[in-house]
């Protein structure tokens, strides 16, 4: 295992020298945002609920609006189509808690397998994640219920553990080797037992909605027709808050945006299984016409389907959907009741 100890300022210096775009959480809640940390800018020294913007970091590689192609129709019916350039300059996301870092493991599995989604694939090539161990939970976190923890490294290329004026940095993948080379140079190696002691400081219990998601997944299939579904979906207003703020939700719409009768572009935008027309066909047939059918899709996708297809939980326990739902719908409560665990 490659773990080193560096003074915190060394990270800023190294990133500055590399000239990469560095995105970091600034503030928390509805006014919080991921901002570009410019040259000489300060990196966050710790992370937790106080550095959790309402919008998740997925937007960096999975924007709400991505042009897929532009088209131009000639007067005699000629069609000219141009693809879009989906590339992005080298970008690093710094200082996200494990619930947000792990979202990239989920997005990679969902969007890169078999026929990779072109926009995400292009941006992912030049995107790395420097995750940080979390120091503060809020009343909505549930990372330990979904197979993660405040110091889980899933999705991160490097993991940072704040320790006084130092950072203990762990290398997990080769993606950010250029940065690692700079950090490693002359830095002290941290032996295993010392590393364990540092990681243990972030081993606090996350007590909200405690359950074992993998055990729950086994019972969720049986809850497919649960009468409880209607009860908790009654107050759902079918907005997109839960899914748009979810770090792992990635359902999308493809729509044409015409500039005039002959020219326009085709765009990919965030969509949500909660909108009534998500599965609404032009024939008027809609297999998920009712809100309970749509909520069922959300809960089961999050806690069962993705797990069946990829072997890890789609929910990373960030708690945003519970916190920001305007009508107090709680996906953890829903999943537990459907799975007969409550």
């Amino acid at each position, binding site marked *: 295992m490659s773990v080193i100890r560096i003074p915190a300022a060394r990270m800023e210096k190294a990133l500055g020298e590399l000239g990469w775009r560095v995105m970091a959480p600034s503030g928390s809640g509805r006014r919080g945002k991921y901002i570009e940390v410019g040259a000489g800018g300060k990196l966050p020294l710790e992370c937790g609920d106080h550095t959790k913007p309402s919008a998740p970091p997925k937007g960096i590689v999975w924007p709400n609006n991505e042009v897929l*192609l532009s088209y131009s129709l000639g007067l005699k019916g000629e069609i000219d*189509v141009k693809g879009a350039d989906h590339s992005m300059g080298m970008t690093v996301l710094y200082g996200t808690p494990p619930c947000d870092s792990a979202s990239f493991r989920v997005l990679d599995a969902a969007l890169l397998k*078999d026929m990779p989604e072109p926009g995400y694939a292009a941006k992912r090539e030049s995107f790395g994640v420097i995750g940080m161990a979390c120091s503060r939970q809020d009343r909505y976190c549930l990372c330990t219920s979904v197979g993660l923890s405040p110091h889980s490294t899933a999705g991160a290329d490097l993991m940072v553990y704040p320790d006084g004026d130092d950072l203990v940095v762990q290398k997990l993948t080769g993606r950010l080797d250029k940065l690692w080379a700079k950090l490693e140079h002359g830095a002290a190696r941290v032996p295993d037992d010392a590393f364990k002691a540092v990681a243990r400081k972030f081993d606090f219990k996350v007590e909200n909605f405690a359950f074992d998601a993998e055990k729950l997944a086994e019972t969720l299939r049986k809850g*497919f027709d649960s009468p409880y579904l209607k009860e908790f979906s009654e107050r759902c207003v079918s907005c997109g808050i839960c899914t748009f703020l979810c770090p792992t939700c990635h359902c999308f719409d493809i729509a044409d945006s*015409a500039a005039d009768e002959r020219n*326009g572009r085709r765009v990919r935008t965030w*969509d949500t299984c909660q909108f009534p027309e998500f599965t609404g066909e032009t024939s008027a*047939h809609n297999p998920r016409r009712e809100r309970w059918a749509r909520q069922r899709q959300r809960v089961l996708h999050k806690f069962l389907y993705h797990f069946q297809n990829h072997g890890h939980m789609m929910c990373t326990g960030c708690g945003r959907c519970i916190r920001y739902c305007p009508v107090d719908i709680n996906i953890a409560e829903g999943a537990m009741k459907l799975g007969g665990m409550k």
Partner: protein
Amino acid sequence: MKDEYLPVVAEVTDIRTETPPGDRMIKTLRVQKDGKAPFAHLPGQCAMISAFGRGEAMISIACPPNDEYLEFSILLQGAVTTSLQYLEKGEKIALRGPYGNNFPVDEWKGKRVIVVGGGIGIAPLRSIYGHVVRHPADYAGLDIFYGARDSQSIIYKQEFLDLLEKKKAGVHLSIDRPEPGWNHFVGFVAANLTRAAPSPKNAVAITCGPPIHIKVTLDILKKLGFTEDQVYTTLERKMKCGFGKCGRCNIGEVYTCTKGPVFSLARLQKLLPEGLPDK
């Protein structure tokens, strides 16, 4: 890496208006690129066709695999299909594909193939029976059950009459109500199927049509003794990306655009019962 979103631009080289103008108009478009099929396909697969400014629609490829052309039978439904039906011979069309899984026509070699189509559901089935007609030595026989509400709504009519005349297939047409000059069965496709009672011995049955048609047909085939492995259907869901990423066409953990739309009844029974015809 291939940009999966970029369609290929081809040409509409033939248009056949299958049913009279009106709210249920069906047109069959033949699409070629420089005189050849824009891409190869297997029976049951679909393509995402563009109507720029309006959107795309996933439409079954309605012809058997061949090098020369693709064909699509388009039912008028909304913005995209209206746009596609306005196309004229010689005009350009953009499409991407092929998407989805296919009917295992190779596994079915040596068997008797029975297709049961209701309404526009006959279009994807044409990719199978068209294939069987082209390779008669590979199969033990072909029966086509197809019905529409009236004789004007029957598509591929001349082709069916040709097949009947040349004794290349058992063709069992039906319309819902009696009409002067109609010499075939009167009643629903399901009733026609019950009347004909085809044997499940060494046979495979494939059905496609509106949800109620599929439900009733599956029930009848079961009664006739067809096992779950002998019955296939092709399902429809709203689709946008077509390659298993946009998250909307799934039934449980299965995306119908990649692991479907073709399903054997055996596979269908294992799926979670979301919006499925026989549940």
